[in-house]
């Protein structure tokens, strides 16, 4: 499975949005970081710090104003092109006029995979997220947690080299989030894909990630990279591990000041 894995190297990325009144907004400034192959890297930071922006740059939907990205296959050779990536979105972004199986098969359909094969692959992916029996339902007929499981299946069915998770559980209630975090941890582990998780939740970052990048308030920089060595599989019980508490304290300590800065920024004090 590790043949899928891809390392991503970001060097000195910066992004500046030109503002309407001449003054420009610096969203990212001097971001250097790496995403290790086959590992889950979480990006955590105060709201508005540019975590999602960084994800969009990695995805190729936004071009950085400066710096560059490089991709390397695990075998050592530089990847000739951008690896295959799929995103799981905070707002789910399911196509409401398509059924669950049609949503999951959408990317395969775009790629021209024949109907029989794509349906079969979609069904397997749906079963993997425990949604068997809901193939013919429309997204509006599902709960939020079930919708996001469709979103996860839709991304994983593409067998991406890199899985991008953009605050995937941000719109869900606390209990649903716990269950889905455990499920996602298992699925990512099984797929062996490189994953990048953008999150607000320190707990979620520790439960899912092998490494955590802590970002500063805007303009976003990486203030620390923290390795998580807790044994896998992790689940809710992991939160009682003394090492979990230590990591939590460490990350909270780093974030606290940045969150204060972000709050001042947001209230227009800057």
């Amino acid at each position, binding site marked *: 499975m590790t043949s899928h894995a891809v390392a991503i190297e970001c060097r000195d990325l910066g992004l500046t949005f030109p503002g309407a009144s001449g003054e420009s907004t610096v969203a990212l400034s001097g971001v250097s970081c790496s995403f290790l192959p086959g590992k889950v890297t979480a990006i955590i930071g105060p709201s508005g710090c540019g975590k999602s922006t960084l994800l969009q740059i990695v*995805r190729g*939907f936004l071009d950085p104003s400066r710096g560059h990205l490089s991709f390397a296959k695990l075998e050592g050779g530089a990847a000739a092109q951008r690896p295959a*990536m*799929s*995103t799981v*979105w905070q*707002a789910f*972004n*399911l*196509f*409401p*006029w*398509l059924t669950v199986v049609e949503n999951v098969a*959408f*990317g395969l*359909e*775009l*790629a021209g995979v024949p109907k029989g094969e794509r349906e079969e692959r979609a069904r397997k992916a749906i079963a993997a997220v425990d949604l068997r029996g809901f193939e013919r339902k*429309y*997204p*509006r*007929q599902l709960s939020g947690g079930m919708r996001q499981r469709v979103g996860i299946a*839709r991304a994983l069915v*593409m067998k991406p080299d890199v899985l991008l998770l953009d605050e995937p559980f941000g719109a869900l209630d606390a209990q649903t989030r716990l269950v889905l975090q455990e499920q996602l941890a298992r699925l990512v582990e099984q797929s062996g894909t490189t994953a990048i998780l953008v999150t607000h939740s320190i707990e979620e970052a520790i439960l899912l990630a092998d490494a955590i990048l802590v970002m500063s308030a805007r303009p976003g920089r990486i203030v620390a990279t923290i390795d998580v060595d807790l044994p896998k599989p992790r689940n809710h019980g992991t939160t009682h591990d003394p090492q979990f508490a230590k990591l939590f304290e460490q990350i909270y300590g780093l974030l606290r000041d940045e969150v204060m800065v972000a709050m001042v920024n947001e209230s227009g004090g800057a």
Partner: protein
Amino acid sequence: MSDQHLTGTTDVSETRAAQTAGWKTICDDPRVLGWGSVALVLLVWEISAYVSGVSPLYLPRPSQIVVALVTMFLTGGLATDLGVTLYRIFAGFAIALVVGTLLGVWIATSFRVRAIADMFIAALYPLPKVTLIPLLIIWLGTGGPFMLTISALGAIFPILINTVLGVRQCDPGLVLAARDLGATKQQIVRKVLIPSAIPAIFAGTRLGLGVSIILVVAAEMVVGKLGLGARLYLSGQILETEQVFAVLIVLAALGIIVTKTQDAIDIWLGRWRIT
């Protein structure tokens, strides 16, 4: 019933409701209410026209109208008129649907095309399309091309405007998700923008078809030798009031069928919106 008890406001109305429950369910059926009231109006009309002895030249009785209607269908060629009018309406409407949707998608997805089209739409949309009849007759004569043009002109603006709105209201997150899954620009239009705009496009076709019907019948009244509008006008000229009413009934029936079919399509299209 326990629900009713919990939500009931007064005991008196509740007992009354229970006593007349059977009658009430019949009265609350929209179909019974709809058709029942039509039947009642016809009955009152028939009786009052008969009793008052008003001349059928002014107000024929419903029974006389039905006789005229049946006669016109069997021997008077009304079926041909209906067929001709339906063809004109739907052929023109079909042209408007294809052209309006394609043009609408193009306008919605291109900033430049939108800027250009905006002025033309602003000028042409509020213009009553009947005012174009004289000009179109000068250009096209009074035959088939004229009828199709006037029908298409009536339907195209509501369809086009609704398509533009529908496409532009598409959730940007869906476009992003499609791009993420590898969609090309063309695939985004075909598989995301158009499907998401279908409810709006259909709302446009509803309005558009209504305008097409009005315009075709009006044009037939002005120039036609065939068609329901022509038949209506000619019957009026020779004071055949029963025949005037008979044509009006056919037009009303057409309206009902069109509206109900659209309702059914609307429900089918919106099946994914049902929670």
